[in-house]
């Protein structure tokens, strides 16, 4: 009962955040200049501007515009692209599966590489293996993704001709973009996992467990790792939230037909409806990632449950 109401409360909070984002998006887009002039250009005639405004409902008072905007969003109507007149949602949802595919494979790669690397480094602290992991993780998150992308293209596509340099035409096309997305995150996760493991390893209960007769592998598995998981989760949550937004550069470099590229072209062409739709989408993924982390916290850390109960 209690756990349920706790989850409900978190959900409500997430919805509240989403509403704030939606409203802020409205305010920012309305206050950043007259879209009619932006779209039509400064040499448009006053008649053209009036007509454009009327067509897009921009001549209504702001509260009405806001109400219409919210009602439309609840209806799943994010407006039509100013440029080709198609619903913005259609434009975005055509591209979304590609981005989700890339983001989820990249994310999985981050976890699969980052977590074990961090654990291994912590358990071998100060030895060669540890230094190797630390070096690679620093490299991973300090090399900019566009640089890594170009490097991969040069080596794997241009020189060795192993993988296609862009597009999404073959199953192997996703390999390089996924590596590019994963590299920075994997480095951060490895470092964070390592630090969290070291912290947990130095907790007094580790020594106490050994004193009670538990062996080392069991102590690490059953006590150190679950405790280290808690701070690591925070980091992973941040990365998860930033995945879609972070795909923009990678998608552009690899000509990956996802929303990352869509947002670049839409921003360049001042296609407000599409931009708005993508901003909301990215905000939603961040909020969802936060919510997931919050709920996982409750699962992993009994102290969190207690704090929220009180």
């Amino acid at each position, binding site marked *: 009962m209690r756990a349920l109401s706790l989850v409900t*409360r978190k959900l409500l909070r997430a919805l509240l955040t989403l509403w704030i984002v939606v409203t802020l998006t409205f305010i920012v887009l309305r206050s950043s200049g007259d879209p009619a002039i932006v779209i039509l250009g400064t040499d448009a005639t006053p008649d053209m501007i009036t007509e454009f405004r009327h067509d897009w409902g921009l001549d209504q008072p702001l509260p009405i515009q806001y109400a219409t905007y919210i009602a439309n969003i609840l209806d799943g109507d994010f407006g039509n692209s100013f440029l080709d007149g198609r619903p913005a949602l259609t434009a975005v949802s055509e591209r979304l599966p590609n981005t989700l595919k890339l983001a989820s494979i990249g994310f999985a790669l981050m976890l699969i590489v980052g977590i074990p690397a961090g654990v291994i480094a912590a358990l071998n602290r100060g030895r060669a293996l540890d230094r190797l992991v630390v070096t690679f993780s620093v490299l991973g998150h300090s090399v900019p993704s566009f640089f890594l992308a170009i490097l991969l293209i040069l080596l794997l596509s241009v020189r060795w001709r192993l993988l296609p340099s862009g597009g999404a035409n073959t199953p192997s096309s996703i390999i390089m973009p996924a590596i590019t997305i994963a590299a920075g995150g994997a480095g951060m996760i490895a470092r964070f996992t390592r630090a969290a493991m070291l912290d947990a390893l130095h907790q*007094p209960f580790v*020594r*106490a467990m*050994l004193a009670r007769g538990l062996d080392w592998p069991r102590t690490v598995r059953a006590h150190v790792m*679950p405790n280290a998981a808690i701070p690591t989760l925070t980091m992973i949550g941040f990365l998860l939230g930033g995945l879609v937004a972070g795909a923009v550069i990678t998608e552009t470099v690899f000509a990956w037909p996802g929303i990352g590229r869509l947002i670049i072209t839409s921003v360049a062409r001042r296609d407000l409806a599409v931009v708005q739709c993508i901003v909301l989408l990215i905000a939603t993924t961040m909020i969802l990632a936060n919510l997931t982390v919050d709920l996982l916290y409750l699962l992993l850390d009994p102290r969190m449950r207690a704090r929220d109960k*009180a």
Partner: protein
Amino acid sequence: MTLLSLGNLAVRFHTPDGVVEAVAGIDLDVQPGEILGLVGESGSGKSVTCLAVMGLLEANAETTGDLRFEGRPITPALRGRSIGMIFQEPRASLDPVRTVGSQLGEILSLHRPDLDRDSRTAEAASLLRRVGLPGPERQLVAYPHEISGGMAQRVAIALALAGNPKLLLADEPTTALDVTVQAQVLELLVRLRDETGMAVVLVTHDLGVVAQYADRVVVMRHGKVLERARVRTLFATPAHDYTRELIASLPSTTEAAAEVPPAAAPLLRATNLARHFAQRRGFFRKSPPLRAVDGVSFHIDAGETLAVVGESGCGKSTIAMMVAGLLSMTAGEITFAGQSLGPQSPAERRALRRDLQIVLQDPGEALDPRLSVAAQVEEPLVIHDIGGKSDRRETVRATLAAVGMDNWALDRRPHELSGGQRQRVSLARALVLQPKMLVLDEPTSALDVSIQAQVIALLGQLQQARNLAYLFISHDLRLVSRVAHRVAVVYLGRIVETAHAARLFAAPRHPYTQALLSAVPEPDPARRDRLRILLPGEPPSPAAIITGCRFRQRCALAQPICAVEDPELLPPPDGAGEQVACHVVQGRA
């Protein structure tokens, strides 16, 4: 047969700064069923010795010597089975994300593979019952953060008992606990020893604990054994100078307390002081406030020491913070030198601060690690804009000299100083403005006994020389008996008794004071058999709402009236200059 024998045990740590010898070739033996007190100050090697026996030292430690258990060399396989161990921070020795039951179950499945799931749970509950936890079934599903330190130590003992050890290494098992809880835990260890014949090595810095509970004592210092003797012999005729000093530096509540200075006009008067903390600012519900301090009144005369004593969570530090002006009051009034310490202008507040300074518990944390000693002691002068540069330097030197620090310290940073030196520097920083009163919040509890004695002596000299008033906050009754002129005993945010120190220690009136005093381990084995009042349970949370007297649920004298009426702090029928809040003592029940 000797249970544990250590022959020429040496432990060296290989550090980047070179090799540190923590234990320098000691011989030690433990006989079956005995309680061996292993005492020494920090750095004496006593904990390292235990960890070496368990094979639990860090990787950079090198252990040599002949370590035998029942005549055979010690192996890691003995851990948790023949030899159990409990630690100083009981809660930290439990995994915070697993329930008590799951941790007990895990250890039981290790030592008792014959048990199935249900009988493991039953066995876990019975272990908890053996260590005296109320409602064992309920405790099994509790997480470590949901139980108190004392309960956590009982759980840790239960975990150690799961393997049926013949020897229990108890490394400062009660240092982190309140004195009444300490008494409960130590009595439990003695009882378990009596029931199972398990030997206990009681590692402690506290000679009082040793005097009250050990059969035999080994005194360590700088990694060497200085002296070993039966407990009564050790206290009656200590053979080594260091032991003599250690015993002498330890105050006892039976000592004559300080002379009371002739009463002057009160320098500070607190009236109905209260501080409540909001518990949760959530939007959905509001909990009752946590009443950390709930209506306390006291006064301090010039040149006088008032000690406020109580167990953790009683509100004594909150009182200190309010008097020092670091925490606002929810209600009440404090007047200092005739002026009210209410909300004032920043300038007024600053002027008052000059006369009323605070010294905090942990000098390591209270000092800025980046500033030199001279800069830190000078800072108050700069803030109050006193004197020119060279005057200030002279004042800093003189103040440091007054606390026994020479010019060597001026350019040092806190990490280059020992704990005692750091506390002297904090004291100098408080004294540099020539205040009339110091609030001392547990000023010596982070220090070793011998250093503690030096700091206490210094405080006495300074008081004499400068007619300083002290508000001395402490949990340590033995210490208080040595420094205080008057004592106020605090329980759950209220003063339950105030009296002159000598009176209070000789004949406490309030049942809580009586229990508190009887729980204090006196450094005198001859007083082992005195009546010890073991309070049931632990102090309730200050968030709990208790009608009537707050102590009644743990009080042996509780009467029907105690549940209804909150006793006022009043002079007892036959006492002058003292007050007690108890219906029974007041003759009203």
